[in-house]
């Protein structure tokens, strides 16, 4: 049913439709509306779950870990500092191969303190071993949340559903909510093969010596590789059921014949699509690549998507100080094996909630046309605000 919903409320309803046994979360801006709405659903009797109001994000992640290991479908949500406080547990969840789902309402990481949107939080834990799916709209976030449970349970890997804080979480959008019967058909009850059970005792989380560690890491990495196919299949199955796909691993839109491509993750994709529509004729068209799966990283799909481009601009919503862009560096790395790889320009945009206007589109196209354009820059930084020695 199509209705106008705030992103966070829609996510809470989507989570409820997945019927989690255990939800644990700690409030943090801009994730708060998600847990508030979930709490309300529980209070009104519309969601039957063990809702554990923990004392920190560290415990939120630990509670869902303990719950999922005991065979419960479990969900949590956080952002920013919360992701970092959880980070030790996030590695643990993934290393133990525990399937659960977490929404990250992407927000900058301090200092300087910022409650506004960028994707530094998810990037800070990119090597934790989670599947990372980035959503460009609230519709995608709703559909991806439901898909995430099936992906997690099929792969025995935890899934992080990333949605831009405020830009998506606090924005009203017309959303086609799936029906409960559709979700039930799509998502069978959770049956975890390794669930802790006193009738069949099992030891989890042992000390592993150097004779085994490398094999376990390899097996985790291999599972991530297999997850590529699962993510595509689950999205295709969801599309069969609802008529809506969420973008598989990545989606190519815009002008397929353009020589310039722009790759981005999250809500900025919508801005770029609008920029192409409004400025494309005047400034020049571009191929737009919406990257949905950041982990596992879809190297082959990416090489196919950029074939024929002269220049690929990669948008980063985070920065690795001393290196530059994170997505940009990874994209450059996987394009190395191409015979005619495009030149990669990597620009950080919208850090700490800096508004990204549509006019960024012609500015990016202009940079692509400039042979002397820097390979990396904080694209929208106003250097006049800084002391000369800091520029």
């Amino acid at each position, binding site marked *: 049913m199509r209705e106008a919903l705030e992103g966070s409320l829609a996510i809470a309803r989507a989570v409820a439709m997945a019927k989690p046994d255990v939800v644990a979360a700690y409030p943090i801006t801009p994730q708060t509306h998600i847990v508030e709405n979930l709490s309300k659903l529980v209070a009104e009797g519309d969601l039957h779950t063990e809702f554990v*109001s923990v*004392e920190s994000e*560290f415990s939120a992640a630990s509670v869902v870990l303990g719950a999922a290991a*005991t065979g419960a479908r479990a969900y949590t949500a956080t952002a920013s500092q919360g992701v970092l406080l959880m980070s030790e547990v996030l590695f643990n969840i993934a290393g133990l191969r525990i399937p659960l789902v977490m929404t990250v309402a992407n927000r900058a990481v301090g200092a300087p303190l910022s409650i506004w949107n960028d994707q530094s939080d998810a990037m800070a834990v990119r090597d934790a071993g989670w599947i990372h799916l980035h959503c460009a709209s609230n519709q995608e976030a709703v559909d991806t949340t439901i898909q995430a449970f099936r992906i997690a349970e099929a792969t025995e890997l935890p899934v992080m559903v990333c949605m831009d804080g405020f830009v998506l979480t606090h924005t009203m959008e017309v959303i086609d909510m799936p029906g409960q019967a559709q979700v039930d058909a799509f998502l069978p009850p959770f049956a975890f093969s390794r669930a802790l059970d006193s009738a069949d005792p099992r030891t989890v989380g*042992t000390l592993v010596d150097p004779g085994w560690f490398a094999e376990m890491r390899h097996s985790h990495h291999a599972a991530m590789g297999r997850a590529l196919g699962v993510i595509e299949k689950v999205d295709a199955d969801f599309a069969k059921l609802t008529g809506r796909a969420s973008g598989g691993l990545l989606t190519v839109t815009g002008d397929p014949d353009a020589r310039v491509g722009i790759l981005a993750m999250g809500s900025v994709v919508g801005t770029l699509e609008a920029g192409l529509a409004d400025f494309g004729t005047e400034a020049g068209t571009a191929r737009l690549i919406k990257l949905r799966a950041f982990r596992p990283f879809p190297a082959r799909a990416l090489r196919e998507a950029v074939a024929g481009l002269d220049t690929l601009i990669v948008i980063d919503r985070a920065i690795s100080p001393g290196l530059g862009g994170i997505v940009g560096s990874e994209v450059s790395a996987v394009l190395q094996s191409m015979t005619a790889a495009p030149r990669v320009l990597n620009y950080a945009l919208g850090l700490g909630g800096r508004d990204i206007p549509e006019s960024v589109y012609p500015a990016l196209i202009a940079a692509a046309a400039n042979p002397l354009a820097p390979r990396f820059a904080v694209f929208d930084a106003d250097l006049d605000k800084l002391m000369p020695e800091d520029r």
Partner: protein
Amino acid sequence: MVQDSTRLNGLRAKHGRPPAGPHEPQAAPSTLRQGQPRFRGLEAGHRACQGCGEALAARIVMENAGPDVMVANATGCLEVFTTPWPQSAWRVPWMHSLFENAAAIASGMEAALKARGRNTKVLAFGGDGGTYDIGFQALSGMLERHHDVLYVCYDNEAYMNTGIQRSSSTPHAASTTTSPAGKERMGKRHLKKDLLSIIAAHHIPYAASASVAYPADLARKVRYAMGIEGPTFLVVHSPCPLGWRHASALTVEVARRAVECGLFPLVELERGALTNIMPIRTPRPVVDYLELQGRFAHLFDETDTRAIEERDHLQALADHNILTYGLAGTGDDPVDTTGIAHVRRGGPLAERT
């Protein structure tokens, strides 16, 4: 050790080991110990040091908690010596996640069991590092949220797994690798944290201290806690021969003297109120406890006035415990520090109403 069931069954046949649970066929016991009808949740053959107080305490806890439990275990000696991959000494579902989250993992297990309509009791195990220090916040949260979990802290009064570093549970004046005794220092400068009072301040149904020197008392406390729905807490004094530097044969004797001198009082608190204590029949001087342990050796330099002062200080702390908890015994109490060690038919409390 629970890896290959064919191999395991072969070993059992060869060594006459008893079955792990009721679902396995019973073999005739060949020794008295094997014939004892007790549940061995923590099996023999793990890698604890000789005389490990924690291993002893954990075995007693598991025997009395029974088979329908699952354990969330903090990082520490107990985790490391029982589960070197691909072996495990546990016969119950057991999970180790991190150092500071055993209470939160246990909370999640309990929530999951509740959601799935199971009655399995959840236990959480941590050392003093994982309980008094780094896992303190998660523990407080678990108690406040009233999860149905028995949390057991095996208190060996330092970070033994990393090599005897001081914790907030290390007693005053004890020498550890991060509070060493030297020309300028007499060991740890601060007091042992009074954790039990903080736990009791959460007004949980049951919180108690116990000691490996008094297994019948420990067993009773575990069984009592297992019968309560809601958060319960046990801190078990568990000497570490390596860290305390005493002979490994003296674990139980050292633990007993800690109780008898008053430095480690055995008390029970329900909903925050003191409801029971183990009386000390004849309080021993604190030096009787200290002299067995190398970690206090610097307190026996008779030429050093600071050593004498610190001994007096520790004696004063013990006297304070005896006074505060009313530990002084009145004579022939069957459940005081002397009486409880005597075996009685019907258990130690049979003579007490």
